[in-house]
């Protein structure tokens, strides 16, 4: 159970290996890797080529938000291990942005927890994306789809 906020890239294989080492109870690991795309579809039709993106965060507060989200996943599912690594700073298309790992004895918990973690992270952790496009810099707007994805995990 760990969260890391860093400028540097991460190693998906090494992180996956480290997560489960020494725990033979684990039968399933689900991972999500988010990457910078070279195209941003705005409002469903307008397409911008993306040269790079800069991720801004709120030092201290973002880490705490990630840790809270991870703790909530452990309250909801029986996880043996989890990891969130999120980068900040300037990233180019094809670069990795975020890694979410969830490990459990069985795959259902690992899948649900991994998806919950990325859904909540997108709407509940303070990050902001500035994209460099041919038309100039543009702040990425929040997606209604992300809000909907996060809401499906709200408890009644």
């Amino acid at each position: 159970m760990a969260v890391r906020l860093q400028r540097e890239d991460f190693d998906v294989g090494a992180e996956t290996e480290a997560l489960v080492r020494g725990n033979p109870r684990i039968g399933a690991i689900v991972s999500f890797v988010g990457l910078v795309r070279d195209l941003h579809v705005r409002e469903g039709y307008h397409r911008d080529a993306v040269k790079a993106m800069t991720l801004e965060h709120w030092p201290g507060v973002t880490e705490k938000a990630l840790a809270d989200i991870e703790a909530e996943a452990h309250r909801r599912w029986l996880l043996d291990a989890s990891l969130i690594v999120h980068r900040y700073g300037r990233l180019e298309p094809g670069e990795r942005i975020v890694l979410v790992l969830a490990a459990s004895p069985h795959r259902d918990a690992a899948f649900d927890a991994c998806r919950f973690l990325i859904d909540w992270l997108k709407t509940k952790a303070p990050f902001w994306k500035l994209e460099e496009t041919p038309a100039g810099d543009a702040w990425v707007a929040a997606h209604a789809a992300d809000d909907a994805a996060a809401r499906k995990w709200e408890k009644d």
Partner: protein
Amino acid sequence: MKIKYFAWMRQKAGVAEEDVTPPDDVRTVQDLIDWLARRSPRHAEAFSEAKVFGAAIDQQVVKLDAPVAGAREVAFFPPFTGG
């Protein structure tokens, strides 16, 4: 009281953080917004898209009718777009 701005609110306000001493009649976050918006044209612009930003008092997200009494830090930011 320290005010922080993030992302496009920081760019529009032209400042990342500033120390202010609002008058006593600034009771809620909304009062604070109205008062800050009168500091400069850039501040007015930062707060002009009234519905698409959030606020936090001492690093806890709050609604705009939350009282600011006792707050050491109030932050303003657009919706989060991480991941």
